[in-house]
């Protein structure tokens, strides 16, 4: 399960990852009241139905299904490979890209549609210039 205690001093890796003082980290996007489109970030207007005042903060699902992926074998300098770059359809709406972990990085081990959980963990030990550590999200097979 998620190690909540250690997330207290961590900064969120993206703006839509929320770290409450007490309780589990979660992802918060926006959802349109009119057309039910779900976004992973706040929107000025709804991009689907154009409604100007229909977007409300929306807690994104913590489970989903693998839509597509790539196994990344060469990346930019300093980035550890291989890793699985995964695109997940979230239960409850919205789509997210992230690393799929705890699965062997080979096509035979990866199934389209496989259910995944969103888990929160330290951002691979990466620190910013000021030495801050970060909390990230990952996909793991459910």
């Amino acid at each position: 399960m998620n190690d909540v205690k250690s997330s207290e001093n961590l900064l969120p890796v993206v703006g839509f990852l929320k770290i409450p003082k007490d309780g589990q980290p979660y992802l918060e996007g926006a959802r349109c009241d009119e057309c039910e489109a779900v976004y992973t970030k706040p929107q000025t207007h709804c991009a689907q139905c154009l409604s100007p005042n229909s977007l409300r903060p929306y807690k994104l699902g913590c489970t989903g299904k693998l839509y597509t992926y790539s196994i990344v074998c060469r990346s930019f300098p300093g980035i550890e490979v291989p890793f699985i770059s995964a695109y997940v359809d979230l239960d409850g709406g919205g789509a997210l890209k992230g690393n799929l972990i705890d699965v062997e990085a080979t096509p035979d081990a990866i199934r389209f549609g496989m259910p995944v959980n969103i888990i929160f963990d330290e951002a691979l030990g990466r620190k910013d210039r000021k030495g801050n550590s970060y909390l990230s999200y990952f996909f793991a097979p459910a």
Partner: protein
Amino acid sequence: MNEVYVLGIDMIKFGRYPDKTVPQLGAEAVLLALDDAGLTMRDIESLYCGNAYQANAMVGQRILQEIGQTGIPVINVSNACATGATAFREAWMAVKAGACDIVVAVGVEQMGKGLLGSAGGERGISKEGLLGSGSMPATFAAIGLEHTRSHGTTFEQFAKVAVKNHKHSTMNPKAMYQKETPLEEVMNAEMIAYPNTKMMCSVNVDGAAAAVLVSEKKAKELGMKRVVRIAASALATDPYQLRNPTLPDINSCTRIAAKKAYGMAGITAGDLDLVELHDCFATAELVHYENLGLCKDGDAGRLIDSGETALGGRIPVNVSGGLLSKGHPIGATGIANIYEICTHLRDEAGERQVKNARYGLAHVIGLGTCCGVHILERAN
């Protein structure tokens, strides 16, 4: 109807020119296109310049500083990998609207080596390899596997695209690489982002291409002998789609642009004789077979298997060698694709000539996302 024609068009051989500047490369292409048209900078009423990496640096004006500061309007455009096509389209619109009779469109780029894409913003920490990948090979790999998910397309079928396009390149002296690559070599090459191996990725090169566009009146005045008619010009952006932009949707905007272009030209995909499409990665070519209507949805794998998209087949695709062999200088690519089509419609493509070609389609995608489609028609 005010028809618009390509009177002159050319490209420099794509490659690496570290000793030249972006304006110098662009100037070279403009001069080649002017020569091809039999005109000089004095004849040009307006210039449309496409460049992505120096989009804020007045590349068009700097080209004129190289070859003639005649005081004409210059419009610098940037639209990712659709930059060149966008410059061409702006030039087309000026003539179509009757505002100008003779204009130039130029696309130019100097690329660094290495992977396209970004390792992540400066704020916070790098997201690459943490929140998936933002690299272009990985993004287009995932787009390819989306097709696999729906239609069972195989790694081998994607690899066949590279085999075909590299074979075509052996007949194109302006391609960066002109080397055949058998299937085993493509599939066993270094894996960059499954299912794209190194040989299934376009190369980052420097390049420039330019075209002289003229009105019907001017074409008749200057000589119709080698002109090519611009039958359609269409540009589209990515419409709302539930996974986009998390997973860039290159399919919907291509379908929108293709539909517009076929309508404008009054033809269907079945009337095309050749296609230059945006094979930035081998996976992309197959999805565009369907997006452009070259086959039914789900049949792209079978189409590459059939050999019908190779030179001599029913609908040859990327006989230039494609971006996979020519290289992909992103601002220049769109006009270089149009150059290839025009070369065939003028019967000047040498051993790679598609015989009796009447209609050709040039397609590019700029991630983020936009799609440019031009249909050209033989005028003679």
